[in-house]
């Protein structure tokens, strides 16, 4: 005797319910106890359950249980999986090549060439000795404690993913800034990407691609990290002084001239701020992505957790912080240079 029997009785659906009975009706513990004692449970009024799927199922077995619903979602996904995979697999294959190629390249270059290269690159990008020194000493320290190759793997993944985020994110942001309708359509997607717990990204991806493929973590990182650069590109271009864009129109600039000579240069500080956020978010995700075989410092963190190797976990965690500080400072200094050139 379930709480909501009366609904189905009054609606005259009793036959429909019994017809759909599966027979193996699951009983709660208290129900079983009551059955054993040979009495029916009387639910006190203040414990009346919410008419949820499970509660309704107790009254009418034809109604699906919540458990059936989740497995329905799963089956639906699995059914769609093959065709999805058929489409997505070839499209995303270049991502695997990029990630693997970049990893190979970064590891193939000997440390005594790569470290100076990175240092020179930094100096070229930011023109600030303090930051260049920070980069140099960070890498020397990482190498000294034998975390160099892990850090380089992490860095390689971040480079590739950030590059792709910019490649796709900036044009998407520009499209959003040009049309209110596009903006309205894309913002919910961005909101969803930003609020979905990072582990949830991984679940459907694991089903779609095999865990050994590098694009699996690549996609997870890009989806997670692309949001800020899209948002800030959109914002940056919308914030460009209306007087200046009007002047561009008044002098007969084409859409392209306006975009490349006026809007993007003036939106650059905002775009760079987005880039900084994108880099930081890819670093956050690359650690989590070690769960799905992303190489790098995350692997050590995972080892620390799995084997309770406190030292390994703490030291690699510290290395990640170092890397984060370094990436943040470098990208912020580059941002400051962009700011300077537009004089806001």
């Amino acid at each position: 005797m379930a709480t909501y029997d009366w609904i189905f009785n009054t609606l005259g659906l009793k036959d429909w319910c019994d017809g759909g009975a599966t027979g193996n009706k699951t009983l709660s513990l208290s129900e079983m106890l009551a059955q054993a004692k040979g009495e029916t449970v009387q639910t006190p009024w203040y414990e009346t359950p919410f008419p949820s799927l499970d509660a309704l199922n107790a009254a009418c077995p034809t109604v699906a249980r919540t458990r059936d619903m989740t497995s329905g979602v799963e089956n639906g996904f699995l059914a769609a999986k093959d065709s999805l995979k058929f489409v997505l697999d070839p499209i995303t294959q270049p991502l695997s090549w990029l990630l693997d190629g970049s990893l190979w390249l970064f590891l193939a270059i000997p440390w005594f060439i790569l470290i100076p290269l990175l240092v020179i690159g930094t100096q070229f990008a930011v023109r600030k000795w303090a930051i260049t020194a920070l980069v140099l000493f960070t890498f020397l320290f990482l190498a000294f404690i034998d975390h160099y190759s892990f850090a380089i793997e992490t860095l390689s993944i971040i480079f590739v993913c950030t590059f792709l985020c910019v490649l796709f994110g900036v044009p998407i942001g520009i499209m959003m800034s040009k049309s209110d309708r596009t903006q309205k359509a894309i913002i919910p997607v961005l909101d969803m990407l930003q609020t979905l717990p990072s582990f949830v990204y991984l679940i459907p991806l694991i089903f779609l691609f095999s865990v050994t493929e590098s694009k699996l973590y690549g996609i997870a990182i890009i989806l997670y990290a692309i949001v800020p650069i899209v948002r800030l590109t959109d914002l940056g271009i919308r914030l460009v002084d209306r007087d200046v864009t009007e002047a561009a129109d008044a002098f007969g600039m084409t859409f392209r001239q306006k975009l490349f000579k006026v809007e993007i240069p003036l939106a650059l500080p905002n775009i760079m701020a987005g880039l900084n956020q994108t880099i930081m978010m890819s670093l956050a995700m690359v650690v989590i992505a070690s769960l799905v075989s992303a190489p790098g410092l995350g692997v050590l963190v995972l080892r620390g957790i799995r084997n309770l190797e406190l030292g390994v976990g703490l030291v690699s965690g510290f290395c990640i912080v170092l890397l984060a500080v370094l990436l943040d400072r470098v990208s912020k200094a580059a941002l400051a240079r962009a700011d300077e050139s537009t004089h806001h």
Partner: protein
Amino acid sequence: MTTQPLVSIKGLYKIFGGNPQSVLPQVLKGMGKAELLEKHQHVLGLRDINVDMREGEITVIMGLSGSGKSTLIRHLNRLIEPTTGSIEVRGEDVLTYGEEKLRDLRRNLMSMVFQKFALLPHRTVEENAAMAREVRGETQAERLAEGRKWLERVGLGGFEKRYPHQLSGGMQQRVGIARALASDSPIMLMDEAFSALDPLIRTDMQDLLLELQKDLHKTIIFITHDLDEALKLADHLVILKDGYVVQQGEPQHILLNPNDPYIEDFVSDINRARVLRVRSVMQPINGQTDFAGVVDADDNLEHLIGLSGGDTYRTYKVQSNGEDVGALDMKALVRALVPAAASDSSTRRS
């Protein structure tokens, strides 16, 4: 001054709102701004504008904020599309232009100077000045040379490599003017170009513009809310109020014959002695020979008062380009210094 108008606006209406075409018939029948807003939630921006702008003249469109003057100037290069009407440049209706021809018009025929300068902050002054030529696709060397030439002309030689934010407001607007001049377009649109500058600099800039105009003979359409500025610059003055033309014509004529209380209010506050010129108050010579001296038709009355030492019994002979054109009685001069409205009824005071 009987040249064909270079730019001619005919029957121009602009209605802002959700569906301007739906309320256009009522507006054409004469529905006013307030009624339109109340009944149909549309704003009447411009109503039946008819203005001819002649080649080589400065046409000043004056009005207070909200009178539609900035809207009007933006119709000329179609930064704003009209609801109905026509805008003819050299006899061609620009409203029929497609994207390509419109761009061509903006690149070659019309340049614009903005109230807030609207320079590109990430470009140097010379790059800014060369912008119009860059848009047309000229080479770097070519356009920068042209930019530098015009910067020199507006008195900014030596500042080529600076950035706009390093310059004062007046200098930035000089860059704005150089940018417009560098495009070599015959028509220049100036949207409250000097309104953001402080009074002394504004006077300098007005003088600069008049001096440039003496050599260049551009067709300038100048927007302002300042009557003194309008009277100083205008060859043809158009006074706008609530989106329609209250009065237009030769500025001296408007000053002496205001046809609307709104304009009377306006003109009552200005220094008439400085604005009015001898040619506006002189009479034809009929037989006098006893002149106290000779003055030029373009002298202002202030000059004459100084010349006569305040003696109202004198009469001066007026010459223009060496020819006798009239006689000026100092009594007539003094009468002209008082606004028409004030002489009609001494109670009226704004």
